[in-house]
């Protein structure tokens, strides 16, 4: 699917298959096209090219109101002149008389949803009288009321403070497991995406770089962008050939064969380990040692003109500033410089 605004392509040749019942995070920096993609699914934007399928039915030309998607907006978009109960019932009340449930049935459904989102007793309140977290839950209940085929959440926790975010995150996962709705949610917070989602689709410049489980995108990043965006990594410019990688003045042998030529090595904490194996390790000068929780953490310089990297040491280690350690690359994340943007 593609979508252009004038000359600029917001979303470019996206191809994404969402599994029924899964919780999929669309993760990426702002402006990477993830919200546009969500709005394309909802029908709030029309694709320039491509098709959208719900199961086997083509929904590309289906009007927004006929798509039966539940959309939760970043700033909730609750109807301010309606009470919580009226907001939740809105999608049922606007149905044509034929398919509209009876009044008593609507009341029952609203009560069930209030129970589900833990807002029993607040049905008569107006949105202005609720906290941010409560508004978010009303918005979710309102979207669920229409029994959507797919639930779409745009930065669902973006406007909330850190504590509420954490609580709601766990709660959303719980709701998802109980109701089983296929859910897509947009976020720029990798921690949120990795903790909450079954799978993560990583967006960059209107394209999807990788789709995979949190483990896959963390451990086996498909592209340099994913390696740099997910997890905290230090980027080192290196030269690679066969099994060897040259870092500054030192060459180190890696377990597997690598790309050839100039490359970028992404080093995360834990990728480096202290080792006595001379063949596979290189010397590193200790710049600083800090004590954090159960471990001691050393900041190392592999070469004078390279960014420093970190390695975890045992708490009882006696390494100090200025010492030279021998370290080995336990995990290699290497991407040819040509693929690195």
């Amino acid at each position, binding site marked *: 699917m593609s979508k252009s605004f004038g000359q600029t392509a917001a979303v470019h040749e996206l191809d994404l298959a969402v599994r029924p019942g899964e919780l999929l995070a669309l993760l990426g920096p702002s402006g990477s096209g993830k919200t546009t993609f969500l709005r394309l699914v909802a*029908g709030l934007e029309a694709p320039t090219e491509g098709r959208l399928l719900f199961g086997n039915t083509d929904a590309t030309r289906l009007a927004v109101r006929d798509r039966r998607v539940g959309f939760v907006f970043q700033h909730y978009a609750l109807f301010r002149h309606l009470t919580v109960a009226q907001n939740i019932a809105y999608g049922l009340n606007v149905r044509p008389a034929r398919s509209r449930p009876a009044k008593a049935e609507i009341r029952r459904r609203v009560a069930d949803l209030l129970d589900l989102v833990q807002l029993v007793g607040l049905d008569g309140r107006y949105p202005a009288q609720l906290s941010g977290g409560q508004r978010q839950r009303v918005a979710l209940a309102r979207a669920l009321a*229409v029994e959507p085929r797919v639930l779409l959440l745009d930065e669902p926790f973006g406007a909330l403070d850190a504590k509420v975010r954490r609580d709601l995150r766990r709660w959303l996962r719980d709701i998802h497991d109980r109701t089983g709705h296929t859910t897509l949610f947009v976020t720029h917070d990798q921690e949120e995406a990795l903790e909450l989602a079954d799978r993560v689709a990583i967006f960059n410049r209107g394209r999807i770089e990788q789709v995979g489980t949190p483990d896959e995108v963390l451990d086996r990043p498909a592209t340099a962008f994913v390696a740099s965006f997910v997890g905290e990594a230090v980027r080192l410019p290196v030269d690679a050939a066969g099994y060897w990688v040259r870092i500054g003045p030192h060459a180190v042998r890696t377990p597997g064969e690598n790309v050839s030529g100039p490359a970028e090595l992404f080093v995360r904490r834990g990728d480096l380990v202290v080792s006595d194996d001379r063949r596979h390790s290189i010397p590193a000068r200790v710049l600083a040692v800090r004590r954090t929780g159960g471990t001691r953490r050393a900041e190392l310089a592999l070469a004078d003109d390279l960014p420093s990297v970190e390695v975890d040491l045992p708490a009882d280690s006696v390494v100090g500033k200025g010492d030279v350690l021998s370290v080995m690359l336990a995990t290699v994340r290497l991407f040819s410089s040509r693929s690195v943007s």
Partner: protein
Amino acid sequence: MHETALSESRTVRWGLIVIALGFLALFLVLPLIAVFAEALRRGVGVFVAAFADADTWAAIELTLLVAAIAVPLNLVFGLCAAWAVAKFAFPGRSLLITLIDLPFSISPVVSGLVYVLLFGAKGLLGPWLEDWDFKIVFAVPGIVLATIFVTFPFIARELIPLMQEQGTADEEAALTLGASGFRTFLTVTLPNVRWALLYGVLLCNARAMGEFGAVSVVSGHIRGLTNTMPLQVEILYNEYNFVAAFAVSSLLAGLAFVTLGAKSFLEWRHGDALAAIRRH
């Protein structure tokens, strides 16, 4: 109490308050009191008798008729214009915003003259209208047109900033929940702007009933036929019929009080929604 650097001395503060209140009293309150005092100078009987005049009654009826046509039309135009400007991006959008303000920035006399030039006997469309035997200038249609022109900005200008601030997320939410476009307008858009809309209607109505300049040019001052209340006041005054002139004036002033009262009530009850307007 400790005074901050910004707080003025007591003398300056009271001086400013006295000047502001004194100015208001001298230029606003006093003249208004004078209107009512003059109207009632020879007793209630003479005041009431002023309204027995057939021409005066005709003027009141015409004013009500003009307002009854101009305000609903501007309500619809204003909503359409505000909707277009606030919710869509289209070429000529900023031109439209500027045009909406046009009636505010040109003299009402010019607004009236425009219609004379267009529809008058020697105007652009005059001969064609004459063939069809349809009079606009020096007749009620001209007065209605001039009034609509002058009062056009009131409702649109109240709505545009509010609608822009509210954005389109509420409407999009309603659409995803299965509401039709019209239903969304009725149940989401309209309630979101209802107080600003009412406020705009009040201001629009006050101006529609009180407009003098533009109406004076197109009216032709035909007694009992094309005189609105403000024009009737002028005629009575020029004939030295002061009590009657001030009696009709007091009706217009009374309308101003009702408008102000309703406006204050709205601000008191729905300050939040209206505050959004004043921020712009």
